[in-house]
């Protein structure tokens, strides 16, 4: 057990570090977890979530979700709401992979229909979607065109034939954060990223073919409203972000904030990864705008990848994407900061919500949700390990407690270094195929790092979010095919 003695149990799923725990805490820190998960949580979570609580302008609590683990700056699973007038914006509360996120896509095919062509499908996805270290994308752009992608996100994709109106409607914020201004992005960030539109990346990024088995449907009514209507329905889930472009934007502003934070604004922090600037400062606004460019590039990246997935399914099954029912469920961002209106002390207040390795999860009827999800709440896509499966959940009204935020995945428990010592990628690939999961990868080392045993039990994580009232289980999704960088 790594939890400090000061940790207080508030309820079966809420744990609190009081402001007395660390000098400078403005608010208490709260962690959502079951007793089992809190006992397994690494020491870095407690250190980092209490560091977040020291940031100027933080409101209510510094939160960490049940999949929380040791990150840099914020813990992964961290959430912080800042008063935009008195508070700061921090790249360490968003992450280097800005708008790393998840997209879930339906098919009207059953597992029985897909399995005879699974190898062909996965092989072709692997050949057509660039993966791995330093990969360049299949959408060729010059740097000016790329700046338009950064400012317009999925809207650029719509204009250029990579998206439908429906795709945009089913993407968080319509696939474009307004106010993205590419003049706030360095030439280096553009040069690093303009060749990477249409790439998956590596690490925990993947594209997976999954099955919604009838016994894994937790809420049939919600499942039907989210598009899961046939037994053993096949769906496609993928996870990727803003690639080198976003990484460079974050690095550039981390350096800028370190240079001005104390000297110009008199802000002292406890960890350099929490470098920040007042939200309304010149530097804060420039970063917010540049971050939006990276957010939009990531939406566009997932959108063009979806376009390619549709092409591949069409080729393999000889039918159009519409005939194959290749419609999106939703696209959610993990690593962002965004101005949202939330209830504080009985009235609505605009807050800057940092989410790092956590997912927005609006409850039913919240403004900003597509009309088709007004009754279900926002679809939440929880990516598990490639061996153990993932979840489709939906937002709840009670999620208001955590500014409508929930978990994003299962959360690592074993270091990548240790996982590579314990598992061999080639053996893992053969074992998984015997268990009915066909995996293609550029990297056996990378595959070993992503072994299921390196992660928390996803069933326990999603159950904890449901018990805490953050999101509700709709369906568990079982992998049958996967491509990895």
């Amino acid at each position, binding site marked *: 057990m790594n939890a400090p003695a000061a940790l207080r149990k508030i309820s079966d799923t809420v744990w609190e570090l009081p402001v007395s725990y660390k000098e400078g805490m403005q608010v208490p820190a709260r962690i959502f977890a079951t007793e089992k998960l809190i006992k397994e949580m690494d020491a870095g979570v407690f250190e980092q979530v209490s560091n977040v609580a020291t940031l100027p302008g933080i409101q209510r609590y510094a939160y960490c979700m049940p999949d929380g683990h*040791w*990150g840099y700056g914020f813990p992964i699973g961290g959430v912080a709401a800042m008063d935009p007038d008195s508070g700061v914006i921090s790249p360490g509360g968003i992450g280097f992979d800005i708008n790393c996120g998840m997209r879930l896509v339906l098919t009207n095919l059953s597992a029985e229909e897909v399995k005879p062509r699974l190898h062909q499908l996965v092989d072709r996805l692997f050949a057509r979607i660039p993966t791995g270290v330093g990969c360049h994308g299949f959408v060729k752009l010059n740097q000016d065109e790329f700046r338009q992608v950064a400012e317009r996100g999925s809207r650029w994709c719509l204009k250029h034939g990579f998206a439908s109106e429906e795709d945009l409607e089913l993407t968080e914020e319509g696939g474009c954060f307004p106010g993205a201004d590419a003049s706030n992005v360095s030439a280096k960030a553009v040069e690093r990223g303009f060749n990477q539109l249409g790439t998956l990346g590596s690490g925990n990024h993947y594209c997976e073919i999954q099955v919604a088995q009838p016994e894994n449907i937790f809420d049939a009514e919600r499942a039907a409203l989210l598009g899961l209507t046939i037994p053993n329905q096949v769906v496609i889930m993928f996870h990727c972000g803003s690639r*080198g472009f976003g990484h460079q934007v974050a690095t550039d502003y981390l350096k800028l904030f370190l240079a001005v934070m104390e000297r110009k604004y008199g802000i002292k922090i406890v960890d350099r*990864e929490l470098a920040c600037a007042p939200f309304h400062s010149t530097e804060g606004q420039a970063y917010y705008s540049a971050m939006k460019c990276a957010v939009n590039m990531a939406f566009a990246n997932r959108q063009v990848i979806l376009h390619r997935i549709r092409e591949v399914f069409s080729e393999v099954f000889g039918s159009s994407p519409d005939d194959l029912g290749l419609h999106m469920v939703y696209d959610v961002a993990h690593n962002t900061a965004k101005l949202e209106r939330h209830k504080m002390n009985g009235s609505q207040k605009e807050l800057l919500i940092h989410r790092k390795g956590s997912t927005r999860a609006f409850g039913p009827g919240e403004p900003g949700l597509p009309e088709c999800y007004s009754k279900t709440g926002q679809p939440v896509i929880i990516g598990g390990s490639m061996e153990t499966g993932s979840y489709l959940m939906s937002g709840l009204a009670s999620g208001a407690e955590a500014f409508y935020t929930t978990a994003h995945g299962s959360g690592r428990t074993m*270091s*990548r270094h*240790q996982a590579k010592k314990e598992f061999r990628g080639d053996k893992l690939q053969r074992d998984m195929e015997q268990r009915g999961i066909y995996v293609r990868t550029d990297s056996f080392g990378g595959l070993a790092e992503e072994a299921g045993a390196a992660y928390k039990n996803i069933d326990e994580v999603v159950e904890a979010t449901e018990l805490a009232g953050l999101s509700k289980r709709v369906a568990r999704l079982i992998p049958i095919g996967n491509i990895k960088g």
Partner: protein
Amino acid sequence: MTFRYRGDIAHADIAFDASGQSLEELFIKAAEATQQVMVEDLTAVRPLETVEISLVQDNEEMLLFDFLNELLFLKDARRLILLPARLEIARQEGGAGYALRATLQGEEIDAARHRLNTDVKAVTMLRFSVTRAADGWRATVVLDV
């Protein structure tokens, strides 16, 4: 002097300690540690491409931060895995800060020839340090992957 990966910091990322008898050697070892996260066998990387870089920074720490970031930039922008063939660090005139000049050599990433591992996204500031020790220089680096 060498580098070693650590499993006890930030489980989702990759941490390493590097050391060198000189600041130059430390930077070369840190470059190797960073590139080996992405390419398992660095001896398979042939010196087919040459890139010259020059960096100026106020202190050793931010100089290493910028240097490793330059390698990541070239990995994404030009798909090059590069290692220092020559590297010099000099105090700037008046003693304010450092100037680094390096000749980097390597080749374009080739999944068929290089045993690829995991992409490095960024150099983080988590526990990032460059310190002088009795026998030379040491650094701790956590890479976001």
